[in-house]
């Protein structure tokens, strides 16, 4: 996999927001990549910078408060940060599609479903309105919304939450992008619908060979649908591994904590769930050392002084940012 050309490579991305409490580095020197056709997950608690990472790729960080300070976002070898706004519009929707978290608010309530589906097609693929309509009906069918002809003239409030998210997926897929950024695509949905939407995303990405970045806080989602996983904490990636390896041998205490706090059906033992103690850190006042140190059970003196960088812990594909990751190597299940 490593020798494959990368579809998207984010290098040293630093995105900050000016707030009343001071400058917040929502994303602090993060690097990750996506290969063609693969599904990569970005996992972490709310506010850890995962959504901001995706919005940075789309260059949808709003100035003047938000700013991409540093880094490179290479899409098919081209740095998106060097593109003009007009060139960037050719990438949005055409090359990279995006599925947002809130299907209730992410569709325009006063514009018909048809219009919202066809506008991208008319813009990027230069379809005339009849062709775009035909394609829109086809797209609705693809995401499991029958009777597309009638649906096109309806409005979002006539759709259920799950259907709206299907519609979002249809919109993201409309112009046959190479990459889809799915920002918490199921968080706002009922549990039963969540699985349907995720299955749909996976099927479609396989069918059309679309690469996908799934942003989620749900490790169950990761286990089932992602090839590789990046775990984020306080604006940084603290562990990266193939999904199976991450589950079997987490090498960062935070990942371990996340795994332990989720009930698992594949383990018969009736262990108590162990929550991670403490609160996510205040991004305006990060400690000089490791940001997770105050909550960490494996903390040593060095953790408070110096922040560890992301290093190989188990071959080139498994990286963790922890001074004590070797202590976790033996499958530490304390």
């Amino acid at each position, binding site marked *: 996999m490593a020798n494959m050309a990368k579809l998207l490579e984010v290098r040293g991305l630093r995105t900050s927001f000016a707030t009343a409490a001071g400058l917040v580095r929502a994303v602090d020197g993060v690097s990750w990549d996506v290969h063609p056709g693969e599904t990569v997950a970005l996992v972490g608690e709310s506010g850890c910078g995962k959504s901001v990472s995706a919005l940075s790729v*789309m260059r*949808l960080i709003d100035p003047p408060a938000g700013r991409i300070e540093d880094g490179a976002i290479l899409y098919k070898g081209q740095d998106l940060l060097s593109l003009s706004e007009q060139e960037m*519009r*050719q*990438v*949005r*929707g*055409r090359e990279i*599609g*995006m599925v*947002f978290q*809130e299907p209730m*608010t*992410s*569709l*325009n*309530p*006063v*514009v018909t479903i048809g*219009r919202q589906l066809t*506008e*991208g097609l008319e*813009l*990027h693929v230069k379809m005339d309105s009849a062709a775009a309509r035909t394609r829109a009906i086809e797209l609705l069918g693809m995401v499991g919304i029958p009777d597309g002809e009638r649906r096109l003239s309806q*409005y979002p*409030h*006539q759709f259920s939450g799950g259907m709206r998210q299907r519609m*979002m997926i249809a*919109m993201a897929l409309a112009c046959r992008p190479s990459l889809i950024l799915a920002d918490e695509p199921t968080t706002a949905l009922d549990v039963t619908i969540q699985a349907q939407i995720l299955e749909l995303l996976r099927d479609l990405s396989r069918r059309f060979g679309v690469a996908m970045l799934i942003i989620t806080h749900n490790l169950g989602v990761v286990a089932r649908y992602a090839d590789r996983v990046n775990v984020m904490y306080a604006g940084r990636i603290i562990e990266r591994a193939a999904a199976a390896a991450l589950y079997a041998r987490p090498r960062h205490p935070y990942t371990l904590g996340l795994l332990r706090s989720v009930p698992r059906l594949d383990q018969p033992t009736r262990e108590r769930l162990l929550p991670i103690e403490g609160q996510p850190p205040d991004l305006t006042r990060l400690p000089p050392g490791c940001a997770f140190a105050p909550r960490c059970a494996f903390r040593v003196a060095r953790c408070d002084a110096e922040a560890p960088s992301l290093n190989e812990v188990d071959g080139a594909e498994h990286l963790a940012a922890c001074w004590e990751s070797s202590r976790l190597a033996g499958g530490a299940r304390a």
Partner: protein
Amino acid sequence: MASYIIKRLLAMVPTLFGVAVLIFLLLRVVPGDVVEARYIGQGSQFQSQELMQLERKKLGLDQPLWRQFTSWMGGLLRLDFGLSMWTGAPIIEEIRLRFALSLQLAIMASTVATLLAIPLGILAAMKQDTWIDYAVRVFSIAGLAMPSFWLGILIILVMLIVFRWLPPMVFTPLWVNPWENLAQLIWPALAVGYRYSAVGTRMMRSAMLEVLREDYIRTARAKGLALKLILTRHALKNAILPVLTIISLEFAFLLGGLVVTEQVFNLNGLGMLFVEAIARRDYTLTQALVMLVATTFLLVNFVVDVAYAWIDPRIRYR
């Protein structure tokens, strides 16, 4: 949609009836009547009570209230406003030209206000916290701070000095000479419209700012749409509703409330007639004017409601 429209139209009937009862009673609660008002200048205390009773009898003011009311209502149902108690002339004749003038002025001023408020509000929102935004805000606040009659006087002065133009003595209706008519009314419409654009501009600006923060705007941007298309297709339709409401509410006031502006521009509109009718206790004329303004107001509101439902499909299905 059709049933929605019919429902809204029917809802106007009880409202109008309420207005009729209210204005009928209110007028008669106010001390004095048209007979006293007429003779006061001639020293009413010297007029014999018999003479005044005779006058009242002629005008039907001696009848019990319910009888006066039913006969007025009966007339209204036949679209007959009756005679003015003061002049004795048919009210329809008294009102016709003035109503045409006031209605046209109100429409023109509202148009001016809309044409100013919507683009300026959008511009200010797009350029939030830049000098353009501040300039727009100062411009609109200045409009609110300047009474429109004062602005009217300024306009007349400038026109007089530069073009040697004075407001004409006689009003030319639109159907007689459209060009002359528009030349006459455009200045008061600008003066009044500018003033009433202020609230609309602010409303448009804040609604636009709010809408631009919505998730669906981000979705539209993520699709690669250009700013212009995002504004016209996705933002404007959502932001324009409150502005519509404000302008339609102002419209009703413009119809009957421009007493001073009418004076400045030498226009014989409803505003002055209203004041005179009330001062003279001309019950029939005042009642007719109130019903006319109320009906127009309800109709404008109805049009706005339909526009609402047309713009926002969620209202239609409720």
